[in-house]
């Protein structure tokens, strides 16, 4: 049995089709850009979809001011390379109140990310936002549509999702409504890695193992990325060879001890590992079983 196209070819074609389809009905689309590996793949797909035109939308980074420094560096480099506008949004209220992951717990994510995203979308009047969520990440995402409708207040109602048949997407919406579009819904973590390798896509070096200053706290290995990290009595950063499977705010993102310095080694480690990708993130855990579903109903991506 031979098939001309590999699974990556088909996934790529599907994602590009989705991105182009958005352009038919969207008034003011935007691509959410979080600088992680999924964002890197999204940006690459967008460049392919519209080449030789630059992608006809800006990148939006909903910033928390607490990302890894290496992420900010790559973000600025990629925006320049792609020729796309980069909008960086920081929730002014969170800024003013000095919301941070050390003192404010779940409020940090809520204000910087969930509220920040809503504010940014409202401020600029974006009616379609591309996101890099994948169905294999988490159970409630397995059921989300590729075109996901949000009310005027950014709510998500799992019972009111439109059926998606064939490759036909209904992107019609009423005034005030917006759509989150997930072009890489059908990709798995392995697909992402393999595609990064195949297409030679630049990613943040934190995905590769290197000696980094770390402390162990609440079962997570955290990297001390700058001097805002408050050390507890008796805590001293220890240099360990670590890498990250997923990237977010540095005080909330657990590292894994690793020697994987190349893409192949990272993939190898991933395939042989026994814990799932989102485990390094604290965000899923608060609120018990259905926490991601709940966050989505509140407007989290």
């Amino acid at each position: 049995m031979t098939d001309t196209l590999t699974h990556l070819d088909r996934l790529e074609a599907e994602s590009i089709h989705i991105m182009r389809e958005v352009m038919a009905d969207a008034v003011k689309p935007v691509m959410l850009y979080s600088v992680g590996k999924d964002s890197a793949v999204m940006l690459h797909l967008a460049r392919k979809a519209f080449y030789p035109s630059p992608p006809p939308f800006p990148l939006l980074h909903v910033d928390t001011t607490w990302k890894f420094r290496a992420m900010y560096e790559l973000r600025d480099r990629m925006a320049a390379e792609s020729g796309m506008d980069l909008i960086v949004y920081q929730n002014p209220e969170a800024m003013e109140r000095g919301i941070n992951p050390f003192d404010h717990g779940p409020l940090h994510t809520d204000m910087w990310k969930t509220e920040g995203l809503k504010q940014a979308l409202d401020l600029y009047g974006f009616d379609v936002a591309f996101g890099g969520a994948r169905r294999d990440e988490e159970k409630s995402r397995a059921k989300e549509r590729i075109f996901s409708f949000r009310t005027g207040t950014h709510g998500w109602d799992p019972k009111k999702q439109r059926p998606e048949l064939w490759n036909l997407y209904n992107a019609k919406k009423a005034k005030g409504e917006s759509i989150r579009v997930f072009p890489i819904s059908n990709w798995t973590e392995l697909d992402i890695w393999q595609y990064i390798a195949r297409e030679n896509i630049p990613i943040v070096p934190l995905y590769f193992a290197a000696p980094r200053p770390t402390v162990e706290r609440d079962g997570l290995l955290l990297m001390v990325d700058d001097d805002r990290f408050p050390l507890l009595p008796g805590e001293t950063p220890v240099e360990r060879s670590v890498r990250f499977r997923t990237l977010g705010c540095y005080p909330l993102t657990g590292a894994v001890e690793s020697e994987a310095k190349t893409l192949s080694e990272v993939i190898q480690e991933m395939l042989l590992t026994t814990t799932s990708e989102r485990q390094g993130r604290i965000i899923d855990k608060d609120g018990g079983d259905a926490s991601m579903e709940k966050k989505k109903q509140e407007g989290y991506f």
Partner: protein
Amino acid sequence: MTTDPVYVTDALIAEDIDAYLARHEQKSLLRFITCGSVDDGKSTLIGRLLYDSKMIFEDQLAALEADSKRVGTQGQEIDFALLVDGLAAEREQGITIDVAYRFFTTEKRKFIVADTPGHEQYTRNMVTGASTADLAVILIDARKGVLTQTRRHSFLAHLIGIKHIVLAVNKMDLVGYDKTVFERILLSYRSFASEIGITNFTAIPISGFKGDNITALSDNMPWFKGPALIEHLEGVEIAAAADEAKPFRLPVQWVNRPNLDFRGFSGQIASGTIKPGDAVRVLPSGKTTMVDRIVTLDGDVDEAVAGQSVTLTLSDEVDCSRGDVIAAADAPPEAADQFEATLVWMADEAMIAGRAYWLKLATLTVSATIQQPKYEINVNTLDHLAAKTLELNGIGVVELSTDKPIVFEAYADNRTLGGFILIDKLTNATVAAGMLHFSLRRAQNVHWQASDVNRDMRANLKNQRPALLWFTGLSGSGKSTIANLVEKKLHRMNRHSFLLDGDNVRHGLNRDLGFTEADRIENIRRVGEVAKLMTDAGLIVITAFISPFRAEREMVRSMLPEGEFIEVFIDTPLAEAERRDVKGLYKKARAGQLKNFTGIDSPYEAPETPEIRIDTTAMSPEEAANMIIDRLLG
């Protein structure tokens, strides 16, 4: 199960990751659906596939073990179903209520599984999941045999055009792995399958719970010679690959114009292959040209095949935009505007014959109206029933017409150019999925006759701009009175006009119509068409109809050139109209002697942004008429 040859990759991953990746990268992709009723063990089977292919990590497994003990249905053993029942609501109910997509990979292929629920009210979900599938796994509980839902699932899978059907006779462990049980089920399924046109299927006795005949042939059933489920899934032909042998079709999604020197046409190839130099025809215009380049970020390529998203440039400057189809010049598809189709209704609001919906097929969106179904299909008995409409999950055969010709192929030949969705124009909901069978002869034979004298010439002769003043409002709101005054004034000003009055039209043109929702829609459609002819003749047309539904008023608006439809909302509150009750109709309606009376037992959908709004409680008919004329001629 980790010793199973299908998944023994760990050694290779550990020893030579690059060799593994090189091999993995060449894997193809198969999409399939699993259908079964609530207790057939569908979620368990999927959980098993994920588990066996090591798609479940340690932390997930730990959570699964804890959940199994807490809410599981398998006692102390692992309840694989919990892995795939995602949303909180359905975990509580213990059933899956939507389509969920899962992913796993074996040595030879990567798989996307659409997990679709088996409940009758969820026909919608199954059709959705099946629309992208190459193969369907139909689960049967070995203890129960072929049930009504087995027939329903098989019919739906066949309806949506799935070529590969797997009959998975599950829970064989609970019938002692008995060969005769399996064979009895096989026999009864075979006779049913041939009834509905399924000529080919593969039956496999399995146990999702115990893992028999999933990845390898089971020692518990030595009488079964194979294939095991995974082996079969790895071998079947992918539908998209078969499309490569068909003639070339590219529905144009997006015109790529970075600058004046480049004009590319982007889209996903629906069928066939293409090379620079190939002769193509752009439809519906019919112009022929050649493919010049196939452009990608990594440089031009020599060939592209069905399934790929590409950007082509053409040798000549031809008109081509989103919704057009670039096709092989020697084998172009047809264009038509009237069709027979199968519809699967997916909305809570029933289908309304005569109402205009958006129809989206490939990359084209047009306005379409559906006629009353020729028949509805009972999915359980497969009987053909008479029907006036289709309700949620109803399946029927209808005739439909589009407001302009669309390029199409029969769904059986091409899913992309034959499958469509219908969208409600007001709520924007996706209300139906459809599959085109064929175009109706009359569409091909009725041609538009062009006349030498056109509408502008006719209007110029009358020294006026044609327009349609569309009065809408409750019965007794004052529509006819004001409309009549407007026409009198226009007449005095030497304007050529015609007043179409609701009551009068029902004496002649529309005397065969009653007051049901469908008849009211047809009433307005006919009046709209007549008014359009009259504006073509250069007249100022005035209509006075209650026209209670927004959708129909919008339908008439879309028939006319931009700006010619002027909606005049005679805004009289219900209480006031009822107080006036000029014709005594409200009294009759309140007494129950008149059915479907607007405002009483039939809704009135007020215009949201009419061109003109007349508040009759604040303005006399004379003032209203003057205001309308000012707006019309001003």
